[in-house]
């Protein structure tokens, strides 16, 4: 099988990338999706709040996904479901399987990686205690409740205040469970502000900041957890230990981009994001392989995934048309409170319009500003009332900046306190 463009993953990232590429005139393209439906994780996100930016209305996850699925069908974009990619080789041969067709060998001219992310499990945190049932990631619980109509528990503690944890605290409450606490190690939540208000405050669910679970009890099914306050070094304080009886511990302790395939094909990964290192075209270190969405870096809002992936799809089509030139690149440096940037470097030879740089900060900053330096010259100062690690930020670099500062070597993003 030969395709110009193969998109791995049929979630919001893959769908938007496919639509964009098709609109740019790439006809010979295909989406490979491992699940039995397109839509990715949105299919289990039945709460609303999606699409405020993209569609200026509040949609549920499945509704948001359906808009793009409709578009994919309208544009007659080919896709295969129930199809798992096993391997990608350097010459862009993709090996995939599905029960109907068996082993597929697909030759691609360009590939867009859009595999999404997975949840960090209990083991990664090495929470001591027993290994009973009743402990699962918030996303796994979400699938049981929202897609299978099954309750994973009745008395719940949520560890981690990531968005899925917050959403699931509310969902479990709706479905008849008692959520006793959301416990967060950091002094601030890593979730969106609006989720804290709408999912916890509105239901009187206590958010225990600077707390963590220090022990898990129960031989067969979970019987309770011990939580404790942590000090400035995130070490639990023994005297503050408190036992909470519960039958369920849901974990919302971080998302990890699923880059197993990217590793196999030798794509360079960022140790900070866990995603690929990309340029402003979302092209990875392997020529012709692009990356977008949560497999590139974890997003808070699907709207941003859509924008980013749309751009990745357009750029992949440019690549296929031979419009992406190689050239000297400018490195983007994240420092002084800025944890990372996407893209990681910029190819100035092919800049047509403003470049959106997305980034996250590593701490909460109040009344600070984001400063952008072209080498030593400050070119941008964006004041922010509040900056928090839970909210992805962006700055736009105007295209004419690059003609104003020819030969710039490094662009630096930093937080500056006013």
């Amino acid at each position, binding site marked *: 099988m030969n395709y110009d463009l193969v998109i791995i993953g049929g979630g919001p990232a893959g769908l938007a990338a496919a639509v964009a590429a098709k609109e740019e005139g790439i006809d010979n393209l295909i989406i490979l999706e*491992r699940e039995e439906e397109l839509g990715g994780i949105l299919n289990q996100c039945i709460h609303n709040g999606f699409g405020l930016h993209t569609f200026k209305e509040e949609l549920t996850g499945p509704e948001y996904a359906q808009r793009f699925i409709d578009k994919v069908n309208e544009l007659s974009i080919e896709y295969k479901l*129930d199809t*798992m990619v*096993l391997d990608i080789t350097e010459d862009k041969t993709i*090996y995939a*399987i*599905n*029960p*109907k*067709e*068996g*082993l597929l060998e697909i030759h691609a001219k360009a590939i867009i990686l859009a595999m999404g992310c*997975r*949840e960090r*499990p*209990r*083991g*990664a945190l*090495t929470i*001591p*205690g*027993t*290994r*009973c*049932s009743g402990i*699962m*990631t918030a*996303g*796994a619980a979400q*699938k*049981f*409740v929202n*897609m*299978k*109509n*099954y*309750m*994973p*528990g*009745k008395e719940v503690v949520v560890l981690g205040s990531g968005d899925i944890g917050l959403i699931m605290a509310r969902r479990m409450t709706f*479905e*008849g*469970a008692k959520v006793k606490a959301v416990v967060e190690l950091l002094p601030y939540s890593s979730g969106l502000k609006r989720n804290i208000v709408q999912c916890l405050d509105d239901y009187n669910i206590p958010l225990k900041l600077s707390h963590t679970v*220090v*022990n*898990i009890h129960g*031989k*067969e*099914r979970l019987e309770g957890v011990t939580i404790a306050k942590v000090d400035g070094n995130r070490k639990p304080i023994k005297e503050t230990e408190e036992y909470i009886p519960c*039958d369920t511990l849901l974990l919302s302790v971080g998302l990890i981009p*699923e880059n*197993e395939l990217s590793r196999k094909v030798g794509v360079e990964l960022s140790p900070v994001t866990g995603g690929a290192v990309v340029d402003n075209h979302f092209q990875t270190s392997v020529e012709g392989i692009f990356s977008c969405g949560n497999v590139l870096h974890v997003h808070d809002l699907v709207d941003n995934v859509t924008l980013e992936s749309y751009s990745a799809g357009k750029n992949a089509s440019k690549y296929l048309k031979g419009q992406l030139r190689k050239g000297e690149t400018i490195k983007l440096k994240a420092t002084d409170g800025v944890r990372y940037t996407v893209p990681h470097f910029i190819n100035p030879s092919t800049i047509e319009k403003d470049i959106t740089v997305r980034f996250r900060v590593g701490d909460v900053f109040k009344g600070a500003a984001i400063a952008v330096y072209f080498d030593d010259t400050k070119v941008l100062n964006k004041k922010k009332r509040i900056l928090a690690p839970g909210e992805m930020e962006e700055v736009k670099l105007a295209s004419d900046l690059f003609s104003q500062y020819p030969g710039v070597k490094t662009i630096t993003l930093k937080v500056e306190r006013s």
Partner: protein
Amino acid sequence: MYDVVIVGAGVVGCAIAREISRYKLKSIVLEKENDVCCGTSKANSAIVHAGHDALPETLKGKLNAKANLMFDKLAEDLDFHFRRNGSLVLCFDEKDMDKLYELKARGEKNGVPELQIISGDEVRKMEPNVSDQVVAALYAPTGGIVCPFNLTIALAENAHVNGVEFNFNSEVINIKKLEDGFEVKTKDKTIRTKILVNAAGVYGDKLNNMVSKHKFTITPRKGEYNLFDKYVGNLTDKTLFQLPTKLGKGVLVTPTIDGNLLVGPNAVDIEDKEDVSTTREGLDDIMEKASLSVKFLPKGNIITSFSGLRARSEKDDFIIGEAPDVPGFINASSIESPGLTCAPLIGVIVSDIIKEKLNPKLNENFNPKRKGITRFNDLSLEEKKKIIKERPEYGRIVCRCESVTEGEILDAINRPLGAKDLDGIKRRTRAGAGRCQSGFCISRTMELLHSELNIPPTEITKFGKASKILVGTNKESI
């Protein structure tokens, strides 16, 4: 009337069961848990020890090296993964060199072949990630690694196919001595048997002390471990032990047969025979000790932690043989490390005692071979193509992290002594054993258990009893 009742379906009980299945004997294994390999056998270092540690006059010392050599044939016959990766006992101080030589001499007395003392530089040539502090090591090429689940399951399946019955959730609650044998009571039934074998792991003392005046006590000695992502599974190829230092016995750093990295264990004597919880102190302790052995320990890549119990008695050695005052009651007890390694040989020893006592006929239908579950991930592209064509369910990946297909899970459920719970599936196929620890595959695996075994989803467990995953349906409690 049974000829033989074996109490305990751990690696020792299953090894004995498999050996006696060579004979025409009516025999049964009684296991208190929902599956085989649920106690000491499931949580240990997964090492096939070369055999230099135990003192030559002990049973442990006598059996180890000999048992080690049984593994090649056994792995071939029973189709489980085993690799002789070799082991190194690292010495961190010139002053301890005599201890290293002493260990070598002991090993040679125990019959361990090809032992060598090599310099620190030679060690690092072999294993570049070994710490610069290492001055020398005892190298044992016969040391190996094995999957303890696979080994135990393979022994059990083969025993079962050759005629041994297995009853699960069948804790022995009473034993009555009869004229010609024993009456063994579980919550569901009472069984009479000529021979009673005690392979009850940490409960071996309880069982022995019900019938024999030669009492002993098993004090479980807990060992905690951290298991790392396959990304860092090649940190070391050989198993790295530490020569005991003033800090204690030391911990090991080893690859597992499936390609993860394993670090541990510590050793803490406990009262509770069921307490396999991990502790903050224990996990921190093993990491600190392990970091002596290697230049860098990739702490960020831990995927799970666990602990296991060593069945250790005050005798500080295996207790194997007929109880002196109770003819027909055979102990295979106090089997602590190197118990996993010695299990196949213990099987032969116990089987020989039974043979002597009952003089059974050979089982002409005995088949020494067992075929394991076909692992999709291990197949070549051509083989993958072929198997999906024949069995389309091999074309659907259920566990992404370990690339386990639906075909493998169905096989795990439907084969002899098949999986009945999530841990059973995990131990047979590795579905859920990877880096996401079942976050993605749990719902599909449960659907398969439901459809194949007709267990309602709310009754599916992690490992039997009350370890249910789901408590009901939405809004039920409103």
